[in-house]
């Protein structure tokens, strides 16, 4: 009975997830689209909970919904994005795109259907005892067997930061900021230049010179 209940929950989450995902790309208003994405994240987190991946589920809600999406919503609201321009090619491409999409979905459905991925093809995983810590296990894996990909992920994030700054940081040209270190280091010769000139001009003064 419980297993059945879990099934129902799964199907409910899955349906909401798909619906929300579809709306993310079809919603006309970008704020709505972002909100649908939040919904999608929530339901995905729910599904992960069903899979006993509690840490990931909570991380998804906290990090993506709590931080990333809120930031994203700010950006969307602050920028005036002209969605109609972005969608320009959508309808003219549809007559070609739709059949291809349908055919491709069909092909994938043929393969990904229950014939190859049905429940009977995969052994049911053994449920873990109640004191099993998903988080501790994840941590152990992450810092032992998967330390290499973990470090790589860190490098990728570093590159992302470097790249983002390199592409966006602009130093203002008209800034009045003065570097104190430079100021202290200044020498007399930098400011004052003594030019030696002959005491007397060798050429006779012109008529114009006389007047002044």
């Amino acid at each position, binding site marked *: 009975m419980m297993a059945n209940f879990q099934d129902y929950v799964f199907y409910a989450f899955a349906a909401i997830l798909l619906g929300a995902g579809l709306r993310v790309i079809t919603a006309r208003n970008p704020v709505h689209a972002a909100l649908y994405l939040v919904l999608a994240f929530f339901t995905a987190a729910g599904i992960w909970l069903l899979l006993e991946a509690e840490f990931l589920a909570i991380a998804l809600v906290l990090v993506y919904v709590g931080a990333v999406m809120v930031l994203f919503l700010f950006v969307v609201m602050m920028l005036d994005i002209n969605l109609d321009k972005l969608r320009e090619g959508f309808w003219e491409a549809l007559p070609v795109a739709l059949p291809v999409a349908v055919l491709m979905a069909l092909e*994938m459905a*043929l*393969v*990904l259907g229950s014939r*190859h*991925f049905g429940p009977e093809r995969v052994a049911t995983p053994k449920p873990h005892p109640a004191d099993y810590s998903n988080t501790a296990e994840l941590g152990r894996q992450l810092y*032992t*067997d*998967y*330390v*290499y*990909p973990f470090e*790589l*992920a860190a*490098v*990728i994030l*570093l*590159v*992302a930061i*470097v*790249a983002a*700054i*390199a*592409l*966006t940081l602009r130093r203002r040209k008209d800034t009045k900021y003065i570097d104190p270190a430079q100021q202290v280091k200044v020498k007399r010769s930098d400011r004052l230049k003594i030019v030696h000139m002959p005491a007397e001009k060798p050429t006779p003064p012109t008529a114009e010179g006389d007047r002044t």
Partner: protein
Amino acid sequence: MHPIVNDIYTALPEIFVLGMAMAILLIDLFLTERTRFLTYALSQFTLLGAAMITVATHTPGVGYAFSGMFVDDPLADVLKLMSYLATSVVLVYSRSYLAERGMFRGEFFVLTLFALLGMMVMISGRNLLTLYMGLELLSLCLYSLVALDRDNPRATEAAMKYFVLGALASGMLLYGMSMLYGITGNLDINQIGSALVKGAPDRAVLILGLVFVVAGLAFKLGAVPFQMWVPDVYHGAPTAMTLLVGSAPKFAAFALVMRLLVQALQGVVHDWQGMLILMAVLSIALGNIIAIAQTNLKRMLAYSTISHIGFLLFGIMSGTLNGFIASMFYVSVYVLMTLGGFGMILLLSRRGFEAENLDDFKGLAARHPWYAFLMLLLMFSMAGVPPTIGFYAKFAVLQAALQVGLVKLVVFAVLMAVVGAFYYLRVVKLMYFDEPQHDAPVRAQPDMTMVLTVNGLAVLLLGLMPQRLMELCAYAILHSIQ
């Protein structure tokens, strides 16, 4: 040896490059415009050091690290050494170009070194996870390098295209990888390989995964029909970045193909063979024919790249060790020629002027006979005219294909190579038989002239003595792939 010590020892070149990249990132903060040369020198030093470490830790055997996610075999070492060399040449060629355009900044060097790190990770990857992460690391660096000239709308547009399409391709690759994981329950290359050899558990799913993996690889290589980004990115990016995108990463892409198709998916060799044949034929035909219609040298070289990739695939699709050796030979020759070709564009460019149109090469022989001669060698090599190395590279891959009986395809490829000769020789014609359009002097740094000279002559000298390079490729392949 303790596992951690072993891990560090085996991955020492990667660790060194990473450490140096971060050090340069910090050091550069304290440098001014005048002392920025230090960043450049440190980058070159990093490459040299990495090469020395790689050579010092090299063994003919296969070593593993990080619970088998990292492999250090002769293939990896040789490809890494080639990547260092190519990257180093890229830095030499682009120095004055970048300085003249205000891009001679620490970010360029840091991102280049991180891109190199990505390549190294790919080359040494023995796990779908690490292969993918290496690819992302490399791609991310390349996207941002292309956009580094941020006030240039053409470059940012190119970067945008590269980024969006690259993300799509990454998605495809990842999707294919997940299918492979789904049927074998494993991310490890060798274990996937042995699982498939034992008997494909689920052919339909396997093929589905294979198609997506091949599509992802084809995008990275730039094979038809996943080549669309190549001309736009090569053309739009600042030439120094084009040089980088077009050279060293090809080694990593080749390694990726070797790891994924050959080591992991050798069980379905007949399936991917068919796909590669299709893409190779289309690439050679489309690349060569469209290149004729180009007036921009960078764009022409982009299409020429597509056709070269077609030839490269000829060796791989033969599915024999001979074919892989020939392909590795081809990819190294290709990088050598690409470095020279774009290097020549960089050489002739100057502040506010990009020597990227074919017309800019008119009458070069009268103005600078030596540069024209080098370009002539490079063009001949790309066209596959003996005795340049390009001829031998084409010959080797076609021979490998012939050995497995792909006679018609080889005849087709030869025909297309003849078509291709037309547009390469047009460049020669422009240089030697046309009137110069302007008379601006070329002011090249002595180091660049020297490296470019070595690069151009290498095309000829290696063509006269290809045996060494061939032996190196054979050594790398035969000691790494069973």
